[in-house]
């Protein structure tokens, strides 16, 4: 069998079970999918379905209970130097200046000071924060903070950029501008991007493919290719119809999960009634 050169990240039958005795919760159930190099994949699903767990496992922050995650064919068991992450909470180190934050990854990799500062400055230029390098995070707005987060993620020249709800803690106008910039960065760098989001229009705007997960325990419900031309207008009829399709998928999932829970409750109730009857 020929090795697919473009295959970048691969999930093979990944299951994640959290056990906190006496309870065990299956967060992810037998997840398999493949992501090619340079793809922008968005992961959507009902809240609490384990989308972030999935991303954290690629980052090496969490490990599957069973199954395999591979990066360019190699098994991922720890954080990989070519896989970087942007956090929902920004996670900037408040005692470091903007420049020092962006240079953090290079600093711990022992890149000489001048070199890492040059790289950091270059990236601050790309995210439009050239003049803010000496500010501290507390002096920045949410949007600016996430720009720093993105610059920090890119500074180590990753091949995969993971974004965990990266735009959801930012006001909508700023988030929209930031999404456009991320789309540009993706187009220019051709790095692989994975974005977990609960914002469906955001996913449609950015993704080459959308991975739709089911309610917990999450399975791959559907993988939807988005073939709209960029830049994508959320008011175009194609956009609207894709939105409608995926939304109904999610809604069906949500209803199914509510039904499952109700059924569970009914069973519990019946059990209780039977026990009382005895």
């Amino acid at each position, binding site marked *: 069998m020929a090795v697919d050169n473009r295959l970048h990240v691969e999930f093979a039958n990944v299951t994640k079970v959290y056990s906190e005795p006496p309870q065990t919760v299956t967060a992810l159930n037998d997840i398999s999918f493949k992501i090619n190099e340079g793809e922008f994949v968005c992961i959507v699903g009902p809240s609490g379905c384990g989308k972030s767990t999935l991303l*954290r496992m690629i*980052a*090496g*922050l969490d490990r599957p209970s069973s199954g395999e995650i591979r990066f360019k064919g190699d098994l991922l068991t720890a*954080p990989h*130097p070519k*896989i*970087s*992450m942007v*956090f929902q*909470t920004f*996670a900037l*180190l*408040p*005692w*470091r200046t903007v420049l020092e934050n962006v240079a*953090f*990854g290079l*600093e*711990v*990799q022992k890149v000489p000071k001048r070199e890492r500062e040059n790289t950091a400055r270059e990236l601050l230029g790309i995210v439009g924060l050239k003049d803010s390098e000496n500010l*501290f*995070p*507390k002096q920045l707005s949410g949007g600016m903070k996430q720009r720093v987060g993105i610059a920090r993620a890119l500074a*180590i020249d990753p091949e995969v950029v993971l974004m965990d709800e990266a735009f959801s803690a930012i006001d909508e106008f700023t988030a929209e501008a930031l999404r456009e910039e991320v789309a540009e960065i993706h187009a220019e760098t051709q790095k692989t991007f994975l974005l977990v989001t609960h914002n469906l229009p955001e996913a449609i705007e950015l993704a080459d493919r959308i991975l739709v997960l089911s309610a917990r325990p999450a399975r791959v419900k559907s993988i939807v290719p988005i073939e709209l031309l960029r830049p994508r207008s959320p008011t175009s009829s194609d956009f609207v119809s894709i939105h409608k399709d995926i939304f109904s998928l999610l809604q069906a999932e949500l209803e199914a999960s509510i039904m499952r829970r109700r059924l569970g409750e009914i069973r519990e109730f019946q059990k209780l009634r039977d026990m009382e009857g005895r």
Partner: protein
Amino acid sequence: MQLGVTPFFLARVSQSFVNVAVGVSLALVVVMPLALLVGLRNQLDEAITPIIMLVGALPDLAILTLLVTVIGRGNVAAVAISAFSAFFPIYFTIRQGVKEIPIDYFHVASVFKAGRLDTFSKIILPSIFPNFLTGLRLSFEFSWNVLLAVEIIASVAGVGSFISNSFQGSAHSMTYGLAAIMTVGLLTILMDRAFFERLEQRIKRWR
């Protein structure tokens, strides 16, 4: 006479001050690693902290007065007293500081592949620095007060015993007691302004 007494009471002030400084430093050396470990490892915390709380809840002045009857009234006792009373504020503030480090900071360390040493020096230490400073400040003030009290109660060598002795003498010697009190006050303010305030200002830049 006057020329002989003035340096004497200053010597007593500095004797106590040095004892407090040494005691607090000693406490720091013991507390820092302990509080860091306990902050990072919940199981260790559950095993150790209740014991420390229990010891901390005992009436320190009584214990320390008892300690004096065992190890004497010299500088060793004074240092031990300072170290003991400095222990608790630092322990609890640093422990709290470590527990409050956002989990995402550790994720940042992992994702960017920081080693153990870098995670310690570039994430944990700067994160707890504000708490460290608060703890040190509290410990210093607390330790200073407790030492003076024990010096007075149990006649341990230092400015405390000098003050209480001077109050039992003539009006003349009482003036020296009052002067010693003022000096201690000034010293405390000086310490605060020259040392702690400056460090606090550094934190305020980013906090």
